């Protein structure tokens, strides 16, 4: 049974916690309670692992909780691992404590006079919602130029067109190449001016911030043709260049903390509407990388066949461990070899495809994560020619304009592999 919730509380609030546990267990929802040995400072990685095993964190809020360093750490681990925080009030939270940043106002249930039936039903529904919904996939490699953006677009276009999956992209890269790949300049400028990009999500104050209710209106349709229109959506939350503000030290710690919570709220909303939420992440490790890694259920690292490919992967594993405060599990990660069979490179470098594949397979951690299907080198996996127009954005993808069967088949097979590994049936 999947663990539905980690119940974070202090012994002083055991009565309220007991009511929460009884309510969830009566519905067949698995729970984990804090263990004293996991709350020791030296067991931080195990505690983070226990929090991440559950689909959400239920925080029993009180004045004792506000002073609890253990609960603060558990909430931080939940945020770092993209687990929604559901708050149950044993008493009203004191102002200006860490709880003010951790409590999601849309997920608060008052139990100060016991867990009344409406509150109990709301709590069960919130916990159930966190176990359902789509999967969040981050396309990520600390090394640049490995094909993250073009592969994101083309892999998940194949999943949409061939397997009828509903997909939404989130472009968190300040270079916003994925947005540029799909959306023409005039429309991009309109989205930017109307605060309909990811920048407006990360902002928590006027003039650019939007309310959480407005998050639902952010996705832009990328499959607009009337012919053979699928019922599944193929959408995007666009990025823009102002996201670079979050890569430098231009934002205060509070701004970044609020941005992380708002980003996770967006992902949570998208997860309820789409089967796959695909985050195209910037290379390097910045605050934006933290947002993506903390929200992702599964990470896909595209790798080019070349000498230094393992360096990027090793860095990636290290960054993920730092952000999530625990080791990455092999089932949370896939490595996709991109650009195999490039004959011009082979003349110079020899059989670099086989060399890279063997090197990754021999690596203790990455070997089991290497996908069986690799993407062949193809001219079609590039941006659209400048003199061609695509009023229907999905037409820029290889599946719509490529005649080479092997490229289409590889994209479709690799996308299916990724979604299966990410846990989609």
């Amino acid at each position, binding site marked *: 049974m999947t663990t539905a919730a980690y119940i974070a509380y202090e012994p002083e609030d055991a009565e309220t916690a007991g009511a929460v546990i009884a309510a969830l267990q009566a519905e067949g929802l698995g729970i984990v309670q804090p263990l004293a040995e996991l709350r020791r400072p030296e067991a931080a990685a195990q505690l983070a692992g226990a929090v991440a095993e559950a689909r959400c964190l239920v925080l029993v809020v009180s004045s004792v909780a506000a002073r609890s360093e253990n609960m603060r750490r558990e909430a931080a681990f939940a945020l770092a691992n993209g687990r929604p925080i559901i708050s149950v009030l044993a008493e009203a939270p004191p102002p200006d404590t860490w709880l003010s940043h951790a409590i999601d106002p849309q997920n608060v249930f008052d139990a100060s006079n016991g867990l009344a039936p409406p509150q109990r039903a709301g709590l069960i529904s919130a916990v159930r919602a966190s176990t359902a919904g789509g999967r969040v996939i981050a396309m990520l490699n600390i090394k640049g130029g490995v094909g993250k953006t073009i592969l994101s677009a083309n892999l998940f276009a194949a999943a949409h067109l061939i397997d009828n999956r509903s997909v939404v992209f989130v472009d968190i890269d300040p270079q916003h190449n994925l947005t*540029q790949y799909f959306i*023409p*300049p*005039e*429309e991009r*400028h309109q989205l930017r001016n109307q605060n309909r990009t990811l920048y407006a999500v990360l902002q928590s104050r006027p003039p650019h911030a939007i309310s959480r209710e407005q998050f639902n209106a952010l996705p832009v349709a990328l499959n607009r*043709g*009337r*012919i053979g229109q699928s019922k599944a959506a193929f959408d995007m939350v666009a990025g823009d260049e102002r996201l670079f503000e979050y890569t430098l030290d231009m934002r205060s710690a509070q701004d970044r903390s609020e941005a992380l919570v708002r980003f996770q709220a967006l992902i949570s909303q998208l997860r309820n509407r789409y089967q796959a939420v695909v985050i195209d992440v910037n290379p390097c490790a910045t605050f934006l990388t933290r947002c993506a890694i903390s929200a992702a259920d599964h990470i896909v690292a595209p790798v080019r066949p070349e000498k230094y490919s393992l360096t990027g992967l090793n860095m990636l594993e290290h960054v993920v461990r730092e952000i999530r405060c625990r080791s990455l599990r092999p089932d949370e990660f896939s490595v996709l070899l991109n650009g195999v069979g490039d004959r011009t490179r082979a003349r110079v470098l020899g059989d670099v495809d086989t060399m890279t594949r063997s090197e990754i397979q021999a690596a203790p951690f990455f070997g089991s994560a290497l996908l069986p299907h690799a993407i062949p080198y193809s001219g079609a996996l590039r941006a*659209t020619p*400048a*003199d*061609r*127009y*695509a*009023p*229907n954005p999905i*037409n*820029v993808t290889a599946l*719509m*304009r490529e005649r080479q069967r092997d490229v289409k088949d590889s994209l479709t097979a690799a996308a299916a592999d990724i979604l299966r590994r990410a846990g989609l049936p």
Partner: protein
Amino acid sequence: MSAARRTGARLMAQLAHTYTRKELAALFALVRAYDDAELLGAVEPTKSPPKSAQDTLLQDVRTILHPILARSAEKADLLIEHMTTAEGASPAHPIPKGIAHALRTLRKSFSDEEIRAGARGLIAKLARSHSSRETVV
């Protein structure tokens, strides 16, 4: 018997099997009267150019719409929408099967020249929305 004579005998047998004596006599008379090129020209079927090649408007519209990255039916749908639907309104026309089908629909309301102008107008509109390249600051 030589190979050439065997082949000739087989062909004659096949002809005798297919035609009457009177028809064969007429055929031999033709063979004696004309050379090979004329006879072969007469038996090969005449290739009439496809209908689409005769329709200059269709050729022109296909060329004008070439920069659009879409299947033929999608381009046709865009052309009808551009020429018949007000800006911002949702299209009410049935989806055409291709450009030739779209032209049959449009010719009921527009002249060939108006359709050519419509196609050019569609491309100009797309060029405006797609062509503002990023600039270096």
